[in-house]
């Protein structure tokens, strides 16, 4: 067993309370100064199915969920049957011995059987999770008090005796473990360094609040609902209006309406909801209304795999809506990054007066991780805003060198204008009805598109493309979004084996940072694309934007996140082959 980290799996059916156990453990780890990374694998069903919480914690930064565990907390037999062999030698299975069985074949890989006689330890069978968690505390040498605190908090809104009953069950479980088993001696370095425990969705939500976003409209959709669920109770207290709408079409159009008034506005959804938002993405582009749209990708196509992760919407967001207009698309990578990127998205939306899309994925949005800290005092730039103008003089869509037309918020004396989705002139008067006017049309297209020149320059500074890891490496792993952690882990392993490796992630998807990216990638020795879809969408985009074709690809599209060791094996196989001859692109003939 590796030292100084602990890996735990909690498994059961939906409705068994796995998430509660998992979340309690996460808080307990964090409060004891440990860092953690957790992923919950579940299905689109309310009761039943198989929920599987996978968590690793340790005193150093932890990057991925564990592929094996020290302790398996099994809440049903199915969990034992499916996962017992994933317990490391010397580890163990914690289970309710009244109802479940660990048989010799379950221990074939060296796991111990830690049966808990629940009915003897507590009167209420519903306490089994508490008992098991307490036993876990003992085995991993974590203080029982942290569990007691977590229980008090969890049941704070219930009657006092619920808290009491849970605490008693915990003590009984702890005591039982102490009398029957020995701690694992994992050597976890407990400290009082405090960290935050959060998901990507929560980081996005807090990022929006930090940016002074005051309007969030959404329609529930997994895996984006976490944003709504966090903001619904927490937003209004901070002056944010949180509006659940009748559908995603209403959600984005409301956000556009609010955005038009000068209120920072955001909407969030997953791919199917984004499909419905498509038309209005172009509306924001044409009206030049600032708006932030979060698309948390899940397994597609169509309803697909609602609770599984995928990176399959790249071309959907790139192409969304008819015609051409400026849009900014950013793919955050980590929880911190999700926070800062979201906050910055509002600055970009305000400055460039266009839709900004945050392309997250289920893995990033729903996994739980410890975060050292978040700087809540983010920079806030509202872009060019006119505060008083002479009525005749104000042109909402003034053609400027930057393409950016200073915005007047409705209610500003002397600035009356109409924003129209039809093509319009600088004043906003439509030119599609009585006289179409080709030169004006051309001017307005160019004005709008020109905004992206500056945006590109700014983004190339804010999010300068760069290799992470050994310079001049033999191998560069390329990816985007949540797989950054996987890429880091793989790079570390390759380095350990003596292969110099670095990683490259595409963060700014549009406007693409072609020059910077080409400069970097064209100097790399060997590129391997790793992404979570079937057609290698990012490799295709890279070829379109840079001409660089990455034909070595590791793709996964079964809904489960990459498993590091499995992926490592695939990577090794690829690297063992001589690289395919460079297929030269053909230029400008």
């Amino acid at each position, binding site marked *: 067993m590796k030292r100084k980290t602990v890996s735990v799996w909690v498994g059961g059916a939906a409705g068994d309370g796995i998430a509660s156990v998992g979340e309690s453990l996460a808080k307990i780890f964090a409060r004891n100064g440990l860092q953690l990374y957790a992923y919950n694998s579940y299905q689109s069903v309310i009761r039943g199915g198989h929920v599987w919480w996978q968590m690793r914690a340790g005193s150093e930064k932890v990057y991925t969920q564990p592929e094996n565990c020290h302790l398996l907390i099994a809440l049903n037999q199915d969990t034992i049957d499916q996962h017992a062999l994933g317990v490391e030698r010397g580890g163990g299975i914690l289970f309710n011995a009244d109802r479940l069985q660990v048989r010799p074949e379950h221990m074939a890989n060296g796991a111990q059987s830690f049966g808990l006689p629940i009915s003897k330890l507590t009167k209420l069978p519903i306490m089994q999770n508490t008992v098991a968690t307490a036993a876990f505390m003992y085995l991993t040498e974590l203080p029982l008090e942290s569990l007691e605190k977590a229980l008090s908090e969890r049941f704070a809104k219930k009657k006092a005796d619920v808290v009491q009953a849970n605490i008693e069950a915990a003590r009984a479980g702890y005591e039982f473990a102490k009398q029957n088993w020995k701690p694992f001696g994992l050597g976890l370095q407990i400290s009082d360094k405090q960290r935050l425990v959060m998901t990507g969705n929560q980081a996005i939500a807090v990022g929006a609040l930090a940016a002074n976003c005051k309007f969030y409209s959404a329609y529930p959709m997994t895996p984006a609902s976490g944003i709504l669920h966090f903001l619904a109770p927490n937003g209004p207290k901070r002056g944010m209006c949180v509006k659940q709408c009748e559908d995603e079409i209403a959600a984005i159009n409301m956000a*556009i309406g609010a955005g038009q008034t000068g209120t920072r506005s955001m909407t969030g959804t997953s791919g199917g909801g984004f499909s419905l938002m498509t038309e209005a993405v172009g509306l924001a582009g044409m009206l030049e209304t600032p708006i932030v749209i979060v698309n948390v990708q899940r397994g597609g196509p169509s309803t697909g795999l609602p609770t599984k992760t995928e990176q399959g919407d790249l071309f959907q967001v790139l192409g969304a809506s008819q015609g051409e207009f400026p849009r900014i698309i950013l793919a955050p990578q980590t929880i911190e990054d999700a926070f800062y990127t979201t906050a910055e998205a509002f600055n970009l939306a305000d400055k460039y007066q266009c839709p900004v899309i945050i392309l997250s994925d289920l893995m990033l949005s729903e996994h739980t991780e410890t975060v050292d800290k978040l700087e809540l005092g983010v920079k806030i730039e509202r872009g060019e805003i006119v505060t008083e103008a002479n009525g005749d003089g104000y042109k909402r869509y003034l053609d400027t060198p930057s393409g950016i037309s200073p915005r007047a918020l409705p209610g500003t004396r002397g600035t009356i204008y109409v924003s129209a989705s039809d093509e319009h002139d600088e004043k906003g008067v439509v030119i599609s009805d009585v006289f179409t006017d080709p030169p004006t049309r051309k001017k307005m297209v160019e004005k709008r598109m020109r905004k992206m020149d500056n945006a590109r320059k700014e983004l190339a500074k804010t999010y300068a493309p760069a290799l992470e890891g050994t310079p001049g490496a033999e191998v560069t792993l390329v990816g985007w979004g949540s797989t950054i952690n996987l890429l880091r882990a793989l790079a570390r392993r390759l380095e350990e084996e003596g292969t110099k490796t670095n990683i490259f992630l595409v963060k700014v998807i549009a406007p693409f940072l072609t020059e910077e990216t080409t400069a970097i990638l064209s100097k790399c020795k060997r590129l391997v694309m790793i992404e979570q879809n079937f057609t290698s969408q990012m490799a295709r985009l890279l070829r379109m934007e840079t001409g660089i074709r990455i034909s070595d690809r590791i793709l996964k599209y079964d809904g489960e996140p990459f498993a590091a060791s499995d992926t490592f094996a695939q990577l090794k196989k690829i690297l063992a082959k001589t690289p395919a001859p460079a297929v030269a692109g053909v230029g400008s003939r």
Partner: protein
Amino acid sequence: MADAAVFKSEIKPDWCPGCGDFGVLNSLQKACADLNLDPKDIMVVSGIGCSSNLPGFFNSYGMHTLHGRSIPVASGVKLGNHELTVIMTGGDGDGYGIGVGHFVHAMRRNLDITYIVMDNQIYGLTTGQASPTTERLVKTKSTPTGNLESQLNPIALALAGGASFVARGFSGEPLQLAELYKKAIQHKGFALVDVFSPCVTYNKTNTYPWFKERCYKLEDENHDVKNFDAAMKKSQEWGDKLPLGVFYANERTTYEEAEPSLQNGALSKQPTVPLDAAILLEFV
């Protein structure tokens, strides 16, 4: 009382001569003048259609949005800055066709906004296809042998949907129409004014004379605007007798009044403040 001319924009309406929408526009300009509104405090939001071109001809802030989406956009405007007077204008296709889902939910939501539908029972801008309010068996470009669907009843739908103010006007009755607008705008909550606004080009069935012959005024009949059942009964009249006026008006709490985040003034006017670190307690 301001001058209605204040609400005329620089752009001359490009509707066909005789189009009912002229009357809708004029009466709205009169109503806003009568109410002494300031153009800078009004936002008119429309969808797409001949009727939805109105904001361009009306001197106030305006948004000419997507076909069928005036309601959600306007709702966002109202939530973003509820100090604005928000008026939505559009057509029967826009509001009762593609946009009817938003209409149904807007009534439940009861934001303090006014919805004016120029109901010409046809798709004007796309050159004459059937609309949801086209009468059964009427021939249009898309129903050359006669429309097979029953006509949607906007008044009944609004009542069933929980609208707190439901009225109908006729662009051939401009003074009544202006009065209806005034009431609708002053009404606290979602207000629908359905307007018979004849399309002289594509609807040869429901013409000015056709309406003139049939329309009568509810106010002449002592109709009780607080009586839901009576309103629903009146809403069922179609054919020989077409009631104009306020069918129903009954204020209840508006969304803005109830929404906690709006209690300190318009969202758009809130000062920028750093987020309180207390939020992080959620994560420890």
